[in-house]
């Protein structure tokens, strides 16, 4: 599913809205999430998941082809953690049946 397919699907379910308004709604959602992450904020959508930014310190990496050591500078990267409800939906089983398999307990 692409963004345009997502927009088409939402437009189909909302015949009273103009397609361009649906486009603006969908774009607003992702633009606002991006803007929040750019500010360093977290975005928490209970049931779906949470977006956050993680700081990575600089480290010595290696060029996998030549084996040469290179310094990888510090950076901030976006991160997404799947919400419990969506994780359960993907595995269609309630998570209390398998407590230890939860990634939280094994990180």
């Amino acid at each position: 599913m692409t963004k345009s397919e997502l927009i088409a699907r939402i437009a189909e379910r909302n015949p009273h809205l103009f397609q361009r308004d649906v486009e603006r709604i969908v774009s607003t959602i992702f633009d606002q999430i991006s803007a929040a992450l750019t500010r360093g904020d977290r975005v928490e959508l209970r049931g779906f998941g949470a977006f956050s930014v993680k700081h990575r310190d600089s480290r010595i990496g290696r060029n996998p082809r030549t084996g040469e050591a290179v310094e990888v500078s510090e950076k901030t990267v976006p991160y997404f953690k799947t919400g419990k409800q969506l994780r359960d939906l993907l595995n269609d089983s309630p998570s209390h049946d398998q407590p230890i398999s939860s990634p939280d307990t094994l990180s």
Partner: protein
Amino acid sequence: MSSTMTRAQLIESIYQEVGLSRNESAELLEMVLGEMSSALVRAETVKISSFGSFSVRQKGERIGRNPKTGDEVPIIPRKVLVFRPSQLLKARIRGEDVSGIKLDVDAVPTSAPRSFSSET
């Protein structure tokens, strides 16, 4: 000081941008998240250009350990959701000038087939 954005702020943004009622804005946000979730449950990849892509990976069974007791526990095979941010989103977060990056950069690079699980 970092803060947390929730549905409330996104609903407010939709309300201000499009002028729908707050109730309808809330319903549309839920619909968007719901359609994305359903696609993922159908094992479809969801690609949002200039934002990133969400895909589902099947993880095999492995032996894990209870970190508290040290007991070995089998971890059953399961599906995990992986989010790969687009180059544009990564650049924005690094604070780079992104005006030169074209907006339709695909979230999935053609050269690197590997992807990282969001839980590692």
